[in-house]
């Protein structure tokens, strides 16, 4: 099997726009709303979502980035590089409604670490989770509030999200680890 494109540029754009609409609908507006992207592709996606919501609601949506490296439970295991990225949250997240954004939801461990990290910065009124792709295989009781696309996968497969900001183009590809190396 060769890697196949499971979301094209257009699919990805529509999914992000829909997620942004769903967030506004669910949150009934954008008051006290903040978007926080998980480094690194969640940041790019989060920025797009925040910009879209600002367009729909004609208001400012605080945006922040979160690096969860210091909260991972698999640090020090082979292959995890201790390269830290910027954490830069809106001044206060206490009493705000935070939409956490990541590219792929898989085991749930990244989101678990992100929740721990976020809560160290304050006490949000509510935390929601938006992901571009939910590929299943959860190891923790975590679910997303907003999903771009559910993609059934095998564990030995890899979902590779490519974004303009980080990879030069928008697409989601599914393949084996070797194929996508």
């Amino acid at each position, binding site marked *: 099997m060769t890697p196949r494109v499971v979301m094209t540029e257009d699919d990805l754009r529509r999914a992000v726009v829909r997620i942004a609409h769903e967030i506004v609908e669910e949150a009934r507006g954008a008051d006290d709303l903040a978007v926080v992207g998980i*480094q*690194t*592709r969640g940041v790019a996606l989060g920025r797009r979502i925040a910009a879209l919501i600002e367009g729909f609601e004609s208001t400012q949506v605080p945006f922040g980035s979160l*690096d969860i*490296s*210091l*909260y*991972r439970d*698999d*640090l*020090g*295991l*082979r*292959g*995890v*590089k*201790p*390269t*830290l*990225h*910027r*954490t*830069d949250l809106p001044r206060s997240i206490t009493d705000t409604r935070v939409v956490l954004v990541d*590219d*792929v939801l*898989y*085991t*749930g*461990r*990244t989101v678990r670490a992100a929740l*721990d*990290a976020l809560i*160290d*910065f304050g006490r949000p009124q509510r935390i929601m989770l938006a992901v571009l*792709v939910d*590929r299943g295989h959860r*190891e923790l009781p975590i679910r997303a509030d907003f999903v771009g696309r559910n993609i059934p996968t095998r*564990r030995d497969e*890899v*979902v*590779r*999200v490519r974004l303009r900001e*980080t*990879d030069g183009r928008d697409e989601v590809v599914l393949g084996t*680890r070797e194929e996508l*190396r």
Partner: protein
Amino acid sequence: MTVQYVTHPDLARSVTASPNQPAPDTGGIAAPAARRDAPPRWHHRHVLDLDDFSRDEIELVLETTDEMREVLARDIPRVPALRGTTVATLFYEASTRTRASFELAGKVLGADVINLSASGSSVEKGESLIDTVRTLQAMGVQVIVMRHPRSGAPYLAAAHCQAAVVNGGDGWHAHPSQALLDLYTIRRRYGTLAGLRVAIVGDIAHSRVARSNIWGLTTMGAEVVLCGPPTLLPSGIGPRISTAREEVAFPHVTIEHDLERALRGADVVMALRLQKERMQSGLLPGLREYARRYQITAERLALAQPDALVMHPGPMNEGVEIAPEVAHGGQSRIEEQVTNGVAVRMALLFLVARGG
């Protein structure tokens, strides 16, 4: 300067091992490509000196330090990155800031930190260094931060235990965490180290801070000027007094006996602590004589670049190697050095404990 990985036998293992091992499922299966595919940037099991650090590794420490500063700036500066890791500080020599900042660094990262010193431990009963570090290892200590009056002691410890050894200063030899915090403090001000002129003034011969700084600064592309009384300058360094071979080894280090010439045009002026015992051993006629010729005064500082940074590794003898109005003046970064020291040591602990 060549990168000397040879002193780290574990390097070969870690580099050859990683490409063959499939990366574990980290949950972030769509994690950034850099995290998945880039070669490991960290090659050290121990941090003993900066002589075997490449530019990229120093850069990694400085970048990691940036993120550690963010953690320190939080309302509750505590993250669980080193939860379950035990760090021991083992100090055979007095220290305030190095020990306190390593301890704080470990605690901010969630590690368990135990502090041992030579007095009050089995060292007083004659326990050898090797036995002490093996005892710590047997208790499950994973990182040993060590200071010792003998040059090279941390290398001995590193050779005889599985724990990671971080040199907190050994004799006249090396003080890598101090040099890294100096590099970080300079880089924060100038954005880079390349092309800067750094004057280090004082007792160079007995200074582990100067030695590690020379390695670090020259690796990062800075020019180093060493200045002090001839009796306190090391032999065998710098083109003026070195053999032809050493000239090649240290093309960016010069020795200058005249303080005013050393300071002229400097971007950074680093004063070193003058130790009183140098007087007893006859290397210096007296403190007043030293201060008259080598003290960093406001007048002399004016010869450097207008906004040159003033640094000192501490503890200071105000009125000897540095004038009080300079130590506490607008160009002084001495307090910031201490603050950055915690963040740099967090980065080092994080990288030795988790970078392998």
